[in-house]
C-alpha cells in the first residue's frame, strides 16, 4: 500500500490553525487498520475527547500519515545494566525507530536513517506541521517527548499522551513529586512556583481568600494547613501545595492532583487556562452566533455556539453553563459546518428536546438543508439532509429564508420557507417534519390567494393567531407597494388560507407605514398569537401598537404614542424581543436601545393583556457592560414549567453575547446578571480567566 495522508480533522487553513502530524512506524500493510483504529480511539477518542482538547478541538488540524513498513513491529534493542548495548534486532520499518523499553534511554531511540525519514515524510505529507506524534507498533509501555515531538507506543493510554501534550503543547511542568529539594529560582512555567506570597502568587486569582497559603506544607503535601473543606476538589480547587516538578519540597504546585501530576485527572484550572490562552487564537471561537435551545428537555435553555466550522453546546443547570458537546468540521451523519450555516431551533420530533435545522445556501456548490438531532450521548448528529432541493420545493436557493412553526399541530415543529430574491416570482413553501425528516407539503408560486401577490420584501412572522394549535403566518410588506400591507394566513395543516388583509392600516393604528416592525406573541394569554407593531422612523414620534388576534383578524388593544409608561420615552432605534418575562403566559417585550441616548438601556415591558408597564436598567447589568455590539437571545436558562421552546413564551431570561463575552441575565423580577464569561465558557471554582 503506497504511503498517503488522511486529514482526520479539518479545522481550517493550516496557517490559521495548529497542525498535528501523526506518523506510524512498524505498521505493515496488514497493520494499517490497527494503526487507524489506534489513532481513532486514542487520539480522537481519547486525548481530543476529554477536557481541554475536547473543548478546543477547533484549534487543531490533525493529519494521519499512513506509512507502510515492510515488517510488522519495530526494531528492538536491549541494554546492559551499565548502559552498553546488549543486543539489537533491526526491522525494516518506515522510520527505522528502535524500541528499548529502557527508561534511561528514553524507552526508544532513532536509527541511523530515522531523522531523515521523519523529515521526508513530514515535508511530503504535512509540510506545515506544528507538532509530531510518532506511534510505534509496539505493545510495551514507553514514550519519549520533546522538541515538538512525542514518540509513543500502542501500549500507551491516552491519558499518558495527554500528560505529555501538557509538556509538548502546553509548556507545562510536571506537578508530581519524586525526591529531593528544589533549589533553583522562580520557575518560568505557569504551574510551579517558589513564591508563597498570596499577593504576588502567579495563580493567585484562582485561590479563594479563605484558602490558606501555603495550603499544603512539607514533602509532597496534601491539604494540611487547617481543615480541608468538605467541598474541596483536589483537582479543581486551587491553593499552594508543596512538591512538584519532581521535587518533594522547595517548590509548589497549584492543586493537589492535576493531569500534570498523575495523568488521569483533568487539567487543573491553572493548566487549563494556560492551554486556553495559548490556543485561543487558533480555535476561531467567538460568541457572535449563539442560539438558545433546550437540548436535553429539562426545561432549561442551553446554548449552541457556532464559530466557523465548529459548534459547541453548553448545558444549563439553572445557574451556569457547562460544556456538553463540541464538534469540529462535522457531526456524524454527516453535516459539515461552515461559517454561513444558519441554525433554526425547534422541537422537530416532538420529544420535548430541541433539534436543529441547519441551512447553508452559499458555502457549497449547492444549498443544503439538514436536520440535527440528539445523538444519544449529549451531542447532535445529522438525521436528514437535503442536497440542493427537497422534492417539491423546486430547488433551494441562497436567499431561502426559513421559519420554524408547527403548522399542522402534531407537536412537531415544521418549517415555512420563503424566497423573494432568487426567482422571477417569490415563493412560499411548507415543509412538514415527521420527526426524522422533512416532507414538502405545499408551495405558493407568486401568491397566496387573496394576498394579491407575494413580493420580494415580504416579511414572514410565525404564530398561531387562530388558536387552533397550527402555526399560522403574518406577512408584512412595507416596501414593494404604494402602501404597507399586513396579511394573516391560517394554516390548515396542509395549506394556507388568508383570513384578513390590511391595506395601509389596521384600525386604530393610524396607518401602516414602511418601517413598521412586527413582533408576534400572545400578549393576552388567550392562546392566540397577537401582534406588536413598532415604528420609530416614519412619524414625528415613535409608536408601539398592541393588536389582539380575534382568530381571524386584528383589533387594537393599545397604542403608545412616544412612550410606554416606565420606559422613559420610546426612541427611533428601540428594538424589541418578545418573551414571556414573568411567566404569566402573556408575551411581554424586552426592549433595547443603544443608539439614541447617552447610554444603553435594557427594558422590561410587562403585558397585562391589554397594556404594558415598563421598567429598565441602564448602562450595566451587574458586571455586564451593555454595548452596541451586544446581541440578545430570550431564553429560560433557570427552568420552569412553561415549555421553553414555544416561541415567545416562558422566556424570563436572556443570553447576551458579543465577540468575546457571554452573559446570562435573569429577567425576573428585574434584570440581574447571573453569570459572565470571557472568551470561553468555564466555571472556575474560584476566580476567573480575566
Amino acid at each position: 500500500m503506497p504511503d498517503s495522508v488522511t486529514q482526520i480533522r479539518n479545522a481550517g487553513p493550516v496557517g490559521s490553525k495548529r497542525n498535528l502530524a501523526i506518523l506510524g512506524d512498524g505498521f505493515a500493510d496488514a497493520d494499517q487498520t490497527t494503526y487507524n483504529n489506534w489513532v481513532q480511539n486514542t487520539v480522537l477518542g481519547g486525548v481530543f475527547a476529554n477536557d481541554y482538547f475536547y473543548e478546543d478541538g477547533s484549534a487543531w488540524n490533525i493529519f494521519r500519515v499512513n506509512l507502510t513498513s515492510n515488517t510488522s513491529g519495530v526494531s528492538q534493542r536491549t541494554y546492559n545494566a551499565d548502559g552498553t548495548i546488549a543486543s539489537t534486532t533491526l526491522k525494516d520499518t518506515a522510520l527505522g525507530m528502535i524500541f528499548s523499553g529502557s527508561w534511561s534511554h528514553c524507552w526508544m531511540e532513532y536509527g541511523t536513517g530515522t531523522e531523515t525519514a521523519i523529515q521526508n515524510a513530514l515535508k511530503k505529507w504535512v509540510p506545515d506541521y506544528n507538532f509530531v506524534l510518532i506511534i510505534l507498533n509496539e505493545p510495551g509501555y514507553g514514550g519519549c517527548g520533546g522538541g515538538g515531538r512525542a514518540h509513543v507506543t500502542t501500549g500507551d493510554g491516552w491519558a499518558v499522551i495527554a500528560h505529555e501534550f501538557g509538556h509538548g503543547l502546553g509548556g507545562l511542568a510536571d506537578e508530581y513529586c519524586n525526591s529531593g529539594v528544589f533549589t533553583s529560582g522562580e520557575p518560568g512555567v505557569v504551574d510551579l512556583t517558589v513564591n508563597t506570597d498570596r499577593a504576588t502568587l502567579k495563580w493567585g486569582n484562582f485561590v479563594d481568600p479563605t484558602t490558606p497559603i501555603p495550603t499544603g506544607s512539607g514533602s509532597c503535601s496534601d491539604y494540611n494547613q487547617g481543615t480541608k473543606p468538605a467541598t474541596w476538589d483536589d483537582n479543581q480547587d486551587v491553593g499552594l501545595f508543596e512538591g512538584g516538578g519532581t521535587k518533594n519540597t522547595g517548590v509548589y504546585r497549584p492543586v493537589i492532583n492535576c493531569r500534570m501530576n498523575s495523568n488521569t485527572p483533568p487539567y487543573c484550572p491553572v493548566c487549563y487556562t494556560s492551554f486556553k490562552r495559548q490556543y485561543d487564537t487558533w480555535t476561531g471561537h467567538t460568541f457572535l452566533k449563539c442560539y438558545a435551545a433546550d437540548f436535553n428537555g429539562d426545561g432549561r435553555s442551553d446554548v449552541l455556539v457556532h464559530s466557523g466550522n465548529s459548534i459547541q453546546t453548553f448545558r444549563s443547570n439553572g445557574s451556569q453553563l457547562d460544556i456538553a458537546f463540541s464538534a469540529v468540521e462535522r457531526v456524524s451523519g454527516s453535516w459539515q459546518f461552515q461559517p454561513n450555516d444558519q441554525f433554526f431551533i425547534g422541537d422537530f420530533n416532538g420529544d420535548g428536546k430541541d433539534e436543529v435545522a441547519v441551512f447553508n445556501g452559499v458555502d457549497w456548490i449547492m444549498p443544503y438543508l439538514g436536520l440535527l438531532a440528539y445523538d444519544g450521548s449529549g451531542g447532535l448528529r445529522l438525521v436528514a439532509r437535503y442536497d440542493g432541493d427537497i422534492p417539491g420545493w423546486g430547488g433551494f436557493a441562497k436567499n431561502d429564508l426559513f421559519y420554524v412553526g408547527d403548522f399542522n399541530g402534531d407537536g412537531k415543529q415544521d418549517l415555512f420557507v420563503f424566497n423573494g430574491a432568487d426567482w422571477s416570482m417569490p415563493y412560499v413553501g411548507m415543509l412538514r417534519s415527521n420527526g426524522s425528516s422533512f416532507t414538502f407539503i405545499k408551495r405558493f408560486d407568486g401568491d397566496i390567494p387573496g394576498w394579491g401577490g407575494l413580493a420580494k420584501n415580504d416579511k414572514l412572522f410565525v404564530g398561531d393567531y387562530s388558536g387552533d394549535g397550527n402555526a399560522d403566518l403574518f406577512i408584512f410588506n412595507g416596501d414593494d407597494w404604494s402602501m404597507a400591507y399586513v396579511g394573516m394566513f391560517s394554516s390548515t395543516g396542509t395549506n394556507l388560507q388568508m383570513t384578513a388583509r390590511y391595506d395601509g392600516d389596521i384600525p386604530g393604528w393610524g396607518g401602516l407605514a414602511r418601517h413598521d416592525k412586527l413582533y408576534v406573541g400572545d400578549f393576552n394569554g388567550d392562546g392566540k398569537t397577537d401582534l406588536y407593531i413598532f415604528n420609530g422612523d416614519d412619524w414625528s414620534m415613535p409608536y408601539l401598537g398592541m393588536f389582539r388576534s380575534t382568530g381571524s383578524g386584528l383589533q387594537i388593544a393599545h397604542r403608545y404614542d412616544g412612550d410606554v409608561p416606565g420606559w422613559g420615552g420610546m426612541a427611533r432605534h428601540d428594538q424589541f424581543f418578545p418573551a414571556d418575562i414573568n411567566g404569566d403566559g402573556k408575551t411581554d417585550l424586552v426592549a433595547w436601545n443603544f443608539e439614541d441616548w447617552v447610554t444603553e438601556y435594557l427594558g422590561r415591558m410587562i403585558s397585562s393583556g391589554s397594556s404594558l408597564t415598563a421598567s429598565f436598567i441602564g448602562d450595566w447589568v451587574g458586571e455586564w457592560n451593555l454595548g452596541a455590539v451586544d446581541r440578545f437571545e430570550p431564553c429560560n436558562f433557570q427552568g420552569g414549567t412553561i415549555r421553553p421552546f414555544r416561541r415567545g413564551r416562558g422566556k424570563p431570561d436572556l443570553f447576551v453575547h458579543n465577540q468575546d463575552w457571554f452573559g446570562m441575565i435573569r429577567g425576573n423580577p428585574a434584570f440581574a446578571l447571573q453569570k459572565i464569561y470571557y472568551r470561553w465558557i468555564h466555571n472556575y471554582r474560584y476566580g476567573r480567566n480575566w
Partner: protein
Amino acid sequence: MSERSLPEKPATDAPVSPAKGKGASKSKVAPRPQRIRGALRLKPKAAKLSTSPATAPENYADQTGHKRISPGGEGYVRLRVRVGEDGGTSIVDSHFVESTLVQPSAIYGNFAYEVTEGEKRLYLDSIPDLGVFRSFVNPDGPLEERQHHMYELKTYEFDVRVPARDLTAAALPKVVITLYRVKEARPAMPVGIQPLHVQYQRELREVARVDGIPARILPEAVQRRSGKRKPSGQK
C-alpha cells in the same frame, strides 16, 4: 444636520387614508413574474414533483465544495532554523505554504520567536517545548524512574513562519529572526506594537538569532517574487 420633518399619526379613532407612495397598489391577484437579466427564472411546477420523503442513509456523502480558488499568491514561507552547540544558527530548509496566516495576539509557553525587519514585526509565534527530550515516567519502576529522564539537546531545530509578501529582495538582508526563552512566564503576555525585546525585556532572554535571509535558501516561487532570480532559460 437637518431635522427630519415627519407627520404625526392620526388619533386611534380618526379615519385614516393611507399615505400612498410610488408604485402599484395590491390587487386580488399576483402581478406577473419579473424577468431576471432578461430571462424568466421559475421553479419547476410543483405538481409534477414527488412529495415522498427521502430515505435517510446512515451517513451522507460529503457536501460538495466550490472549486477551490487560489488565494492569489497569499501564503507564507516556512523556514527551519537549526541552533548549533555554539548558539550559531543556520536555515536548513524552507518551503512555501499557500494559506492564510494568522498571527497570535499573545505569547505563551517556554520559547517564542519573532521575525522583524528593522522595527517592523513580520511575524511571531510561541514554541512550547524546545531543546529537550523527556523519557516518560516509568510507573512501575524504581523511585528514580518515576519521573522524566531529561536529555538536553546540543543542537535543535525550530520552525519559523514569515508572510511571503514581506520577503522582498530589499528586505531579505534586513530580516532578523530572534529566538527567545521565556524566563518568567506571566499569566497573559499580549503582544503590543513594540518588538518583543522591548515589550518583554524583563521576561524574555534572547537565545539565538538569524541575521538576514539569503535569497538562495528560499523556495523558487518566493525567489522569483522577490525579484532576485532571473527567469529560467534566460542567459
